[in-house]
């Protein structure tokens, strides 16, 4: 959920909408925001599954320190989504385990 208005920070400023692809589905998000923030704003809290137990993980530190929020972004696994900005057309996938490089998968 986005915080549209705030007693101290004021109303959310106008931002340009762009589209990212999340697990194959297009999603409208705002330019300049972090991937994890955009996903959480749209109700997606669970960003990856662990290697062995396949248990779900979401953000933990929110500042790029813990790596709990990693996803596969444009074919590159283990990208910390809490500190990576969305780009128009970016392809984002919920990551299983260590993930795989997209290039290898397609070869």
């Amino acid at each position, binding site marked *: 959920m986005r*915080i549209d208005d*705030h007693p101290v920070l004021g109303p959310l400023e106008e931002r340009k909408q762009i589209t990212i692809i999340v697990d194959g589905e297009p999603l409208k998000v705002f330019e300049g925001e972090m991937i994890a923030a955009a996903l959480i704003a749209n109700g997606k*809290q669970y960003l990856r599954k*662990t290697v062995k137990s396949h*248990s*779900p993980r979401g953000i933990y530190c929110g500042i790029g320190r813990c790596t709990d929020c990693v996803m596969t972004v444009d074919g590159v696994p283990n990208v910390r989504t809490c500190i990576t900005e969305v780009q128009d057309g970016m392809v984002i996938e919920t990551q299983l385990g260590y993930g795989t490089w997209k290039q290898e998968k397609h070869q």
Partner: protein
Amino acid sequence: MIEREIVVIGAGPAGLSAALEAARSGASVLIIDENHRPGGQLFKQIHKFFGSHEHRAGVRGIDIGTQLIEDASHLDIEVWLDSEVCGIFHEREVWVVRSRELSVTVKAKSIIIATGAVENAVNFTGWTLPGVMGAGAAQTMINIHRVLPGKKVLMIGSGNVGVIVSYQLLQAGADVKAVVEAAGRLGGYGVHTAKVRRAGVPFYTRTTVLEARGNDHVSEAVIVSLDDAWKPIPGTEKVLDVDTICIAAGLTPLVELAFAAGCRKVYSPVLGGMVPWHDASMRTNVPSLYIAGDVSGVEEASTAMEEGRLAGLSAAYSLRYIEKDEYDSRFNDALRRIDSLRSGMFGEKRRIAKHAIINHI
């Protein structure tokens, strides 16, 4: 290898203040931060600060941050963002990774480490579930990214970060169901707990979280009372309907760079654990290395700024940018300001702990 006079690592309140003070003294300064924006934790601090006029009391953290950056833009300060310092070699060489393709080594005359701190974790059954996060993470989400991580929150820990973030979650439109504290006393300033309490949020002392439940996401939390030996008392479990659990269990100084560079370790539980030894001028045992802010012991943004000033001033003085008289007078002013922040029933403990570090042989 490129050369610079003073390199500051970390552009939080401590690093920015250090850079400003050094540049005002005439030194040329390079400040490096791994983030896309300078400011460190300051831009999540939307509350008005304590202190007196000279500490910029009554001004919100975000506005102090904006002012620091504005001031820096008028001085001889070079800023590298999105750049991570990955090592300090031979006491003077700073290795910086600037992008996936580029790393640079900068040779400095003096280095000021102001890397801040990280939040401590607490583990309990279910703590890895999405929806369990650091209080600072929630603060970052609401105040920087303007996204609510959840509507119904349980806060673990009643120190200042726990109560400030609880208040800010309420301001952002969330409902804080409870603040639990394992100790018998609440940790944060009474004025902070009082404003959270009158907003209807209950505090539970001698209580901890036992379990986070849910499938792909937190859907409830179990809290439990603790006995005098800090053991859960069976039968006192309570289930709370929450979708988010925030952990505010203190901070640990981000000391890896300093220790790898040869700084001596001193243990200070009050200030967050192992910290680099330093003297009153913020200089470490490695003569070219200074530290400031949370990395030298976790306190608050206002003390971080004063320590930054001390470090920046001392580094500039060691490079002979200012005369002794001027140094002494500016240094003593900063010391006086910092001492007044480290007073009263909260500050006193930190002042004693700081002195113990400085006097540690």
